[in-house]
């Protein structure tokens, strides 16, 4: 019998139950979704790291490594495996595409995972194991012949396998590119045998070892490994740990970004869901008080009644959680699927969704907590004797408030007084309405503000800072400074030189610029374009933050592969895509830093054929890759806007109905006295609108705060400055206000159906 009552009561309070189920489902969905996103990424990337032997350390040398060097590294205690490794950008013959030609002597380290075709063969004389994503983007099939060129050399063979590699998990040609573009850039593995065959003996004799890198699997920490490697090799080398590689750092950045998102948005949604549950369950139990008393009077034990009413909360918790699991996995799939947003960035073989174990415990905790809320709400109504329980629930008695003594209050109209006192009397309901509005506003400001921030970031870094049409990359190792300057002169371009340096034990890029044609520009921390002066070095914000440096301080660094050591004044701090040190060529000359020109930036339409030009990159191709990035961003923002609107509607409607129910009798009285429906409706809406205006005012700084928190959490990936455009404010305010007004009107329409006679017959 009680079961029948349970379902009938669920139906009777269907609006409230549906609201609570939606809120729980949203909270659980967002919580699970973001956790599924980062954890799936972590598990799936680990699979490919393990399958392809992703290296823990990379030792670099301009002169290359001999087999003896490799053996010395392998002999280090704590090194489990190592390989000599080569990665060099080559051109695809008769095409403008670039491929990272890769050779790993020991395929157990930094090797490949074959997705189709023949297994990788380290003895194969003419086989290409090509990136499957590049092959798909360019319509290249297994068995197809391919010729690659590097300067005057060419390597020909057939595509024998389509592969993925953790070394190219995020396949970017350089740090100016944000998103991979497999239609123009990919990677290809060949065997050491094929490499040997492709390089003429004379050339090999001249340049020594081709392998400029040793990749190492080791459990040592970086300082210990660096010390051991330097001792084993007899000199200081540039050594980068996996944290300093794009494939690891960016993927981990995505994981951390997911963790950050999973720690902010779900908290907001779950907190609102739980608060909605508290206020609504209390209200339902208050409405049911005489029935609760009747059960008690009939002889039902308190325990039975508690179980019966707690079951309502359990049902809400279970249905909400089940729906939330569906939403969570849906959200996870939306971000993490082989054809989805993340797949345009990370080149993984498997996109299986996983939820971290703790999420299931949290979900059980949420269900238990919701049940506990139900339990507490009923227990409150069961207090005292059966006669006490039989008495209808009476809301808190009105007390005079301090502000009522003011003349201004006394001059207020009755509607204003009525609403003001009602807000104070039903504090929980008013607070929940406020939180709902603030939540809606925070999501809108946060979501749309993120878009503004990214738009401004792209505008300043790419539209304004990149003022050239073409970047020409040069073979710096094989050309003199004078040759480079002559080439830059002929192209009427600005130029840059790049060197790997270390500050402490961390590797950075030193970028030396000569800007005379305003083709390359620099951005300060206030997102203004500034010229570089010849007074010192400029550092990126991340270096300034990590090493506590500011303009006027001294910065010490040393280039790898050399015994040089430089201490220079910091002239300024820049926001930059590249994590590095920047200076003018004039200052570098003054400081005695040697360099070779590695890139020329030009507006020249016709770049001549030149043996030292490796490749060219157009501004257009860089910008195109952002479209994919922005598309991803826009989808996320749409999701946030939809979530904000749903949250706003559900919370405000639920509370609006609750307010309507609680004031039903008062409204019936007003109606009897002679107030018209429209007037009563306006009274109801005005309270909602006050709270909305207050919520908007609180939501504005709260939204900025949440956005700033997100940007700070993302600071290791991008140097983003918070930007909020007037359109974002306008849309956020109007949408929040609109949601509140529409919900207010929906609730206010109900007062037409007030049964004056029935309402006034009931006992107070």
């Amino acid at each position, binding site marked *: 019998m009680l079961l029948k009552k349970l379902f009938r009561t669920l139906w009777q309070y269907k609006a409230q139950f549906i609201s609570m189920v939606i809120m729980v489902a949203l909270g659980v969905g967002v919580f699970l979704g973001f956790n599924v996103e980062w954890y799936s990424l972590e598990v799936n990337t680990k699979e490919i790291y393990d399958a392809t032997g992703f290296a823990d350390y990379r030792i670099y040398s301009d002169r290359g490594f001999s087999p003896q060097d490799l053996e010395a590294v392998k002999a280090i205690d704590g090194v489990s495996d190592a390989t000599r490794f080569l990665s060099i950008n080559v051109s695809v013959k008769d095409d403008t595409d670039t491929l990272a030609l890769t050779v790993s002597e020991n395929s157990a380290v930094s090797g490949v995972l074959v997705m189709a075709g023949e297994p990788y063969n380290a003895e194969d004389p003419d086989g290409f194991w090509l990136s499957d994503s590049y092959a798909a983007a360019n319509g290249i099939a297994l068995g197809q012949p391919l010729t690659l060129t590097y300067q005057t050399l060419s390597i020909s063979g057939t595509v024998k396998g389509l592969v993925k590699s953790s070394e190219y998990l995020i396949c970017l040609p350089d740090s100016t590119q944000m998103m991979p573009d497999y239609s123009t850039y990919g990677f290809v593995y060949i065997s050491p045998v094929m490499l040997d065959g492709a390089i003429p003996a004379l050339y090999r004799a001249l340049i020594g070892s081709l392998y400029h890198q040793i990749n190492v699997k080791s459990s040592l920490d970086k300082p210990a490994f660096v010390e051991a490697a330097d001792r084993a090799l007899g000199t200081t080398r540039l050594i980068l740990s996996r944290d300093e590689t794009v494939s690891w750092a960016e993927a981990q950045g995505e994981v951390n970004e997911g963790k950050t998102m999973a720690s902010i948005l779900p908290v907001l949604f779950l907190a609102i869901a739980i608060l909605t549950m508290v206020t609504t369950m209390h209200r339902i139990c208050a409405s049911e008080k005489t029935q609760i008393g009747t059960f008690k009077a009939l002889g039902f034990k308190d325990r039975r009644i508690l179980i019966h009413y707690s079951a309502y909360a359990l049902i809400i918790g279970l249905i909400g959680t089940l729906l939330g699991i569906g939403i969570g996995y849906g959200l996870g799939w939306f971000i993490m699927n082989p054809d989805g947003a993340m797949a345009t960035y990370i080149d993984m073989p498997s996109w299986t969704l996983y939820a971290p174990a703790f999420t299931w415990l949290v979900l059980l905790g949420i269900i238990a907590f919701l049940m506990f809320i139900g339990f507490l709400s009923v227990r409150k109504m069961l207090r005292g004797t059966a006669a006490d329980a039989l008495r209808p629930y009476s*809301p808190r*008695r*009105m*007390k*005079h408030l301090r502000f009522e003594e003011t003349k201004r209050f006394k001059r207020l*109209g*009755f*509607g204003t*007084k*009525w609403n003001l*006192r*009602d807000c104070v*009397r039903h504090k929980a309901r008013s607070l929940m309405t406020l939180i709902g509005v603030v939540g809606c506003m925070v999501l809108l400001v946060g979501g749309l503000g993120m878009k503004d921030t990214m738009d401004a970031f792209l505008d300043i870094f790419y539209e304004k800072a990149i003022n050239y049409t073409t970047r020409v990359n040069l073979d710096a190792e094989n050309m003199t400074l004078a040759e480079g300057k002559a080439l830059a002169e002929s192209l009427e371009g600005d130029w840059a030189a790049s060197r790997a340096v270390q500050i402490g034990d961390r590797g950075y890029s030193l970028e030396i610029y000569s800007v005379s044609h305003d083709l390359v520009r620099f951005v300060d921390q206030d997102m203004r374009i500034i010229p570089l002066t010849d007074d010192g070095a400029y550092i990126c914000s991340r270096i300034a933050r990590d090493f506590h440096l500011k303009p006027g301080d001294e910065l010490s660094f040393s280039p790898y592969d050399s015994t040089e050591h430089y201490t220079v004044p910091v002239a300024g701090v820049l926001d930059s895509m590249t994590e590095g040190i920047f200076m003018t060529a004039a200052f570098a000359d003054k400081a005695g830093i040697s360099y070779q020109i590695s890139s020329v930036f030009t507006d020249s339409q016709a770049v001549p054929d030149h043996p030292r030009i490796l490749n060219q990159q157009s501004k257009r191709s860089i910008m195109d890759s952002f479209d994919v990035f922005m598309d991803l961003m826009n989808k996320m923002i749409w999701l946030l806007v939809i979530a904000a609107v749903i949250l706003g509607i559900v919370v405000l409607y639920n509370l609006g109905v609750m307010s309507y129910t609680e004031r039903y*009798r*008062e409204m*019936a*009285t*007003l*109606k*009897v*006295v*002679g*107030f*018209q*429906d429209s*007037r009563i409706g306006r009274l109801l809406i005005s309270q909602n609108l006050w709270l909305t205006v207050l919520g908007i005012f609180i939501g504005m700084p709260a939204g900025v705060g949440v956005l700033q928190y997100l940007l700070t959490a993302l600071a290791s990936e991008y140097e983003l400055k918070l930007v909020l455009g007037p359109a974002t404010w306008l849309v956020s305010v109007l949408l929040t206000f609109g949601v509140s007004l529409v919900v207010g009107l929906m609730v206010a329409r109900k007062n*037409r159906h007030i049964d*004056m*006679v029935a309402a*006034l*017959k*009931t*006992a*107070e």
Partner: protein
Amino acid sequence: MAIVEFRDVSRVYRNGEHEQRALDHVNLSLEEGKFIVILGPSGAGKSTLLNMLGGLDSPTEGTIIVNGKDISTLTPNELAEYRAASVGFVFQSYNLIPTLTVIENVALVKEIAPNPLSSHEMLRAVGLEDHIHQFPSELSGGEQQRVSIARALAKNPHILLCDEPTGALDSETGVLVLKLLLSMARDMGKTIIIVTHNQNIAKMADVVIRVKNGKIRSCEEQAHPLAVEEVDW
């Protein structure tokens, strides 16, 4: 002169196939300035009659004329205007707004009534001038009912409709309230209509209407109604 006329008024409530005739072809004419009591057992139709008269409900058939105006065909908004201008209500359970003080509860009718009276005056008339800044929950039942009467009177209505106005009060407080209502009729010329099942109240009425099964069983004028003090409570 008749202030109220019911002409063949019926009110039928339908719930699926079930039909309940709360008022059954009622004809009635009431004079202005009288103290009228409608008597009857529970479910007789007396409250329905009062609700029709107060514009809280509309008849299924028939016509209700109040002050020469047919109220049976008014729209919901016109009925609201009618309630605001012509009738005052006093309920068994007071129905005050708990978030407004005594004076605010009475003064709120100024927002809608075309010719409202002074709230302070009305509260003085019901003897609550010292309680005007208190909330309803700070008053006794009798005091709350007096506020309710003051609010009804503040609209300056022609008719005061009272549904079991003493039902929730002890006899002593009930007498006070009835005295007050009676003085409204005698001193202010208001038409007071009280619905009750308390036979004693009928003894002080100018007119006693008995209702049973939705029909008027009798409508008697009493030439010599008793004073409140003369009634054995």
